[in-house]
């Protein structure tokens, strides 16, 4: 009798769920029975390598991270189009190369414009 093809997956899932549940359950049991928690101000303070923490934990968001991320996204999608072109390259006529070149040059002009405008400067 052949085992079901997904039987191992089900077993794996069961073990993966049971393992942390059992560990956390045992830890919880220990706390409840032997070591009740008594939180206090010194115990709950934020740990910062032994120093006293001062100030707010929120940091100013640098807008430039976002600009670089967007430029990366755009050129990544350009790459997405270049990949099948590269795979099918040897079977394509010359016109296809011209079309792809025009496409790449359009995006290069966008990059040149962003460069000229100073969006690539890190401030």
């Amino acid at each position: 009798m052949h085992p079901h093809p997904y039987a191992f997956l089900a077993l794996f899932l069961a073990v993966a769920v049971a393992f942390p549940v059992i560990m956390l359950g045992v830890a919880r049991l220990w706390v409840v029975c032997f070591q009740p928690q008594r939180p206090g101000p010194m115990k709950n303070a934020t740990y910062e390598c032994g120093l006293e923490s001062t100030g707010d934990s929120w940091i100013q968001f640098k807008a430039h991270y976002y600009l670089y991320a967007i430029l990366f996204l755009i050129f990544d999608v350009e790459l997405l189009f270049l990949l099948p072109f590269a795979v099918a390259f040897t079977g394509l006529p010359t016109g296809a190369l011209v079309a792809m070149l025009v496409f790449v040059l359009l995006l290069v002009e966008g990059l040149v414009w962003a460069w000229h405008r100073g969006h690539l400067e890190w401030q």
Partner: protein
Amino acid sequence: MTTDLLQQAAASNQWAAIFPELSLGCLALLLLGLEMVLPKDNQRQIPLVALVGQAGILVGLLINFYTATLDTETFNSLLRHTHQGQVMRVFFLVASLLVTMLGMISLPKQKVPRVEFYHIVLVISAAMMLLAQSNHFVMLFVALETVTVGFYILVSYFRTSPFSLEAGLKYLVMGALSSGLLLFGIALLYGVAGNPALPGHTAEPMGFSGLHSFLATGANAHHFLAASGVLLVLAGIAFKIGAFPFQIWIPDVYQGAPTPVTAFLAVGSKAAGFAVLFNLLQVFSPCSWLLVPVITVMAAATILFGNFAALTQHNVKRLLGLSGVSHAGFLLLGVVASVTVPMAVGAVHFYLFAYLLASFAVFGVMAHVAGANDADQELDHYAGLAKTNPFLAAVLVIGLGSLAGIPPLAGFMGKLFIFVAAFKAGHYGLLGVAIVGVVVSIYYYFGWIKAAFFETPTASGDECQASRPQISVGLVARVVLTLLAMATVVLGFYQGPLGVWVALR
């Protein structure tokens, strides 16, 4: 795919057929290049370059109107060149010329970078022109999304104004929602038309001719997935048009967007939606058992909603937005009549032209009267316009009269043609609703005219009224507004060549 198949497909690539769109694209890139190269003092010439370039492309398109590629399919049947497609190309080019001119009036009032505006307007117009000729769902989707994403940028162009940004966000969410609906509809149609188990399945399920032949075979038009696909695609297009369930975005977005962008949305985006709708109705004609009732109900609801909601508006841009919704309702009346009466197609195109002329006349006046806060344009700001600037008041009256459908202006003739077509098609109930709509619309248009002619500006209260200097109208703007007003009046009397030209199939 072997090389000869590719060569065959490439042989139908007629680049000369899309020369206007290619030149618009090159002009857009030229503008960016000029901005990088020219010194700061000469940068005011760049919008003029855009204007002159577009005028040149328009002249070229008109000269080569009856090209050799008319009535053929090019680019491996991605594009189909019809007379109606050519007419809409001219329409979009005229609209983008007028938007460029409005931009030259409105943008100097704000501190925003200028050149990108003209660049994006040109890209959007090129995409609209391709949209009017598309014959394949891939082409339709790419062109439609180019237009939509371009408008996301334009609506939020005044990036220091919270109104503009909020309008951009609202347009983005609603637009992306409708794009998702459209996309899912295309997916369903693709799946069902290419299914080997069904009769009439095609090898090109996303091409319009293949899809049409599939829907025309047997009972395919009643297939559940095909019908749902058709409805979802219609929902996606209804968003661009501003038809009933999908018109919620219009007042807020029209108010927040910069005035030239509102004009472009009101005229260009709407007309693009209708051009696509006509193409799609031809493809989906076997499904008219479903489409005619749905579009009838949509038209009635749109007319009623647009007119009654516009009654309570004080903000001029919201008023034009909601009245634009009512115009979309009248156009939908023409569309539903066109299923049985062929003359309705010409009527709708004529109405679109009359709407273009009248809207840009009104938006031209608005661009001049608007102050530093572009989103805050109320009816009270027009009080006493007849005394301070009679030229603008006269243009405003002609534009608003044409939009209201007052004889003998072009808008009246447009409405008359559509009503005649609807009568011939037998949609008497819808015609009654439309007439009620016209009567209601006269009230709010005349409210605006009354403010301009019969009200005097209050000395206290409105600070921007008191501190606004005399509105000066430049020479180019004066000429263009005069031409628009004169064309509206002349077309009301004598449609002649324009009427014949837009009505030819």
